[in-house]
């Protein structure tokens, strides 16, 4: 983990209520796709956890949805503004696992970390495909970016306004070697039930610290209690214990 200042390079909408922010700063602490940063917002006590969509030396990208006051405020941040970030948080996905033809299953703002993952899977010579789910066509983002990488992407919208009508689980192909998924918990549960292979699932929790100090984000697993911010956010399918 590293605490450091980043400077906003770009902050623009990519879909309805969804924004992409590119930040310049020290990315040395980021070691895996699916890790997150914790963003300090002036005048708000808790930091906001946001997944790293992509990163390279000296620059990272996040994609955030306007949910409450904090993320709404972020849309007003101009280029040049500095932000205090904790980086390198969480375990992230392990792209080395799971055969040559993994499927990436993303829902809403669960899609961004899968983009960074797709890049790294491709770099390992694997052939990932993506299934991306959204509520409606106006909220769709990044399908083109996945395809531009060379990762085919199938879309599903709940209202049928674009792609397959329904949920990501309605658009899964038959044959895949493994899965990686991130999205709302209801979607993760549906994916867990529908998928026949092993896989990695990325979870969300309200966080007090984001780096393992407060026990605010704990969950039960078959191998004991884990902190979503530290031993997560990515859990293996086999270790998951659902709350209800």
């Amino acid at each position, binding site marked *: *983990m590293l*605490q450091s200042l980043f400077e906003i390079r770009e902050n623009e909408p990519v879909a309805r209520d969804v924004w992409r922010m590119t930040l310049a700063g020290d990315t040395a602490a980021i070691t895996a796709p699916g890790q997150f940063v914790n963003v*300090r917002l002036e005048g*708000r*006590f*808790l*930091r906001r956890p946001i997944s790293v969509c992509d990163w390279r030396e000296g620059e990272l990208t996040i994609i955030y949805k306007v949910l409450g006051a904090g993320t709404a405020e972020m849309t007003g941040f101009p280029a040049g503004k500095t932000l205090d970030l*904790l980086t390198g948080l969480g375990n992230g996905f392990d792209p080395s696992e799971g055969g040559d033809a993994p499927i990436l299953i993303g829902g809403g703002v669960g899609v961004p970390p899968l983009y960074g993952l797709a890049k790294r899977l491709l770099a390992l010579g694997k052939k990932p495909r993506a299934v991306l789910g959204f509520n409606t066509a106006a909220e769709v983002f990044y399908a083109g970016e996945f395809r531009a990488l060379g990762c085919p992407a199938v879309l599903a919208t709940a209202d049928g306004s674009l792609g397959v009508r329904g949920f990501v689980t309605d658009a899964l192909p038959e044959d895949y070697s493994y899965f990686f998924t991130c999205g709302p918990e209801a979607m993760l549960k549906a994916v867990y039930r529908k998928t026949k292979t092993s896989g990695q699932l990325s979870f969300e*929790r*309200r*966080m*007090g*610290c984001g*780096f*393992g*100090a*407060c*026990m*605010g*984000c*704990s*969950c*039960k697993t078959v191998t004991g*209690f884990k902190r979503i911010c*530290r031993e997560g956010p990515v859990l293996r399918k086999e270790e998951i214990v659902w*709350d209800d």
Partner: protein
Amino acid sequence: MGRLSVTLCGVGLDNPVIPASGTFGYGYEFAELYDINVLGTFSFKGTTLEERFGNPTPRIAEAPAGMLNSVGLQNPGVEKVISEELPKLRKCFHKPVMANVSGFSLEDYARTCALLDREEQVGWLEVNVSCPNVHGSGMSFGTDPAAAASVVRAVKAAAKKPVIVKLTPNVTDIVSVAKACEDAGADGLSLINTILAMRIDLRTRKPVLANTMGGLSGPAVFPVALRMVYQTARAVKIPVVGMGGVSSAADVLEMLMAGARAVEIGAANLTDPYACKRIIEALPGEMDKYGIGTLAELTGG
């Protein structure tokens, strides 16, 4: 004796800054970030006789200038703390640590304290009396002077190390609880624990916390905490450790002026992992501003 040194129940501290229980784990998350030997000491995560998962999530909510938590004392249980956490801590922390203990019956408190008392690394037992008494009314021990005193007597009979009783602010008259603990043999007091609070999510119309209610801490509670430290420190002869919303060197000085002997810092560690280190480094400059030569001048020792 350095400019910042103080004494707490006969044990010397290089400085009065102590990360508060539940916000510093068992130390090593922070030891990866900085040398935690710069601290006066720290109070480790509230430890109970048996392992606990704690409450369901969400367990964290935001507040104006603060946060709510309903973690519910997640910890591996005293035996694992002794066999796994303390040996790891020994490698990165070379000072006496404050062992924070919780219980749900007098026997729980006594047994957990007796086990930790034997550990050489433990300098003080900080006994959190904010927990519900499962054999009694279900009310927290710390809301009733007689119940709080019974915990103190049970723990004092079981342990030799100094016992610091951590008081809950969720009472009408904290002074009467403080005095009852002093009379029962407490060596010190620490306060405040979190203030019972609640948030509702407008989108779902439901409480944010799965537990409905949780404890408020952070800068929002500072003036309330300061007032309670002031009232308590005037009423008792044993040392008082002040906490609640402390987030700067100036806040530390204010707590000491209110009568605290040392200061614990909780929520600030969660939003700024370097908070305690920064506060310790800022203390001498802040003291210069107000013509304070040594902290012992403020605390009387």
